[in-house]
């Protein structure tokens, strides 16, 4: 079995299984914690607060928006860019079609793929350099944050290196990093991809019930 076959075959299957089961395990665990019963009479809908809390956090309030503009632009650029690359990159669609799903969908044209890659890379680099440049971010960042950022960066970079599709070894390195990323994901802060709506919703629900969400 070649290196490429290993990382795209059994190792990928294992990593994907860890990713799915681990993420489910974490999510169910968080939901099962539950919350203390609030016996005070609600002033407004907690469910509406959950939704409002989620939506409201997509747009920072004025003063914060001004102070964190670089972070906001970088964050949106990276997250939206990565989403587009993962689900609309032609190589990814082909891989998912052939290996997992059995169907495909329209892919980004090459120029759009490259442009999106540039935006995503710019966003990720901006987020990380802000993490090391801001004294507050330095204090609240730990190894997990840096490993998550770098692992994601290396996955993207190795994918970029393999774009020519001329060498199996480059594709193999990319897939190996993808496998590692999938295994690392459920046990790290990368899980925020799935948990952000719960934390925002929890805050929204609490304040919504108190009638505080505007």
């Amino acid at each position, binding site marked *: 079995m070649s290196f490429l076959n290993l990382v795209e075959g059994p190792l990928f299957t294992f990593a994907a299984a860890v990713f799915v089961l681990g993420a489910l395990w974490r999510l169910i665990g968080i939901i099962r914690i539950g919350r203390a019963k609030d016996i005070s009479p609600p002033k407004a809908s907690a469910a509406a607060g959950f939704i409002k809390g989620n939506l409201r956090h997509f747009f920072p309030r004025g003063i914060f928006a001004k102070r964190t503009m*670089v972070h906001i632009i970088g964050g949106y650029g990276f997250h939206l860019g990565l989403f587009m690359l993962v689900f609309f990159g032609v190589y990814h669609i082909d891989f998912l079609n052939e290996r997992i799903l059995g169907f495909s969908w329209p892919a980004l044209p090459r120029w759009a793929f490259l442009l999106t890659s*540039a935006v995503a890379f710019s966003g990720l*680099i901006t987020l990380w*350099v802000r993490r090391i*440049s801001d004294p507050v971010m330095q204090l609240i960042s730990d190894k997990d944050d840096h490993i998550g950022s770098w692992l994601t960066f290396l996955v993207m*970079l190795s994918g970029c290196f393999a*774009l*020519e599709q001329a060498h199996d070894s480059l594709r193999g390195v990319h897939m190996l990093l993808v496998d590692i990323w999938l295994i690392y994901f459920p046990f790290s802060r990368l899980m925020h991809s799935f948990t952000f709506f719960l934390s925002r919703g929890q805050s929204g629900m609490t304040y919504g019930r108190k009638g505080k969400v505007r």
Partner: protein
Amino acid sequence: MHNQFYSLRNFLKLSVLMLMLAAFAAPVAAQSVRPPGNAVNLDDGIEDGPSNALGDVSDTEFWDNFRGGNPSELFAPAPEGQVMTTTGQQWRMIREKFIRKYLGWAPVIVIGLLAVFYLVRGPMKITAGRSGKTLPRFTLSARVAHWFMAGVFIILGLTGMIILLGRVVIAPYLGLEANSVLTSAAMQGHNLFGPIFIFALIWLFIKFVRGNFFQWIDLKWIFKLGGFFGGHVSSRQFNFGEKTWFWMVILGGIVISVTGVIMLFPGLVEDVRWLQLSTILHALGAVALIAVAFGHIYVGTIGMEGSIDSMLKGEVDENWAKEHHDLWYEEVTGKSAKEEETP
């Protein structure tokens, strides 16, 4: 000797004629590559010897005509009788004999000089020691712009060096296959990060241009060699060395960006010489910046105590500011840099 030379020339002539024949045989090729107008059929006296294979055209005239393709019309069909350009050969010689041979040494020499300087001079300490009080020097967005550029610069520098020097540095030691893999990866990375560099350059310019214009006081810095060999040098927020580095990055970055765009989109230029010039200027500009960047890194880290704080924390020690940027210190604090503070 004379006979050998004579037979070699005949061999070349015959080869050229055979190539022309092959061109006629391939319909597609025949549309873009045509034999010279004065070419003769192989049957024309070939059996009787090579005496009149080129008709009445001399060798010099033949080769001048053969190599006389117009480089300014890269994508236009070659005029009749003109098959190839020679600027590519000149470009290749510059690339092989100068750029690949010597250019890679520039960063190595700079690193060597810095190592010697460090061993002889040692790091520049804050003479009065750290005061424990700090001054804000760079905003968060300026620091992010700086590190963003630094990150992109490192990626482009590494991938660019692999592309430029892989064949002479990597291939002999790791083999052609490894070099091929690394060059393929580097090429894709370089092409993708190139446009990000343009964005980083604009961002850096906007954040740092203020305070980086040259002033008369910079002459003192030059005459005192920046204080690297002793003595105090006054300066505002940025000294002459920092300003020079800033404009090197901006102007060199513009050259690298423009030539990079030309190489990414070769259809933008009609004349092949622009492409050839672009590769040369791109390499020269990039290697120059990489070499000087080592000096920048040296002064910003181990070469000068307290410098790195400005880019990691955004603040510098007051004594550092008094010693290296006294006029800036006075400007932002309203106090004299020479006065001893009373506790």
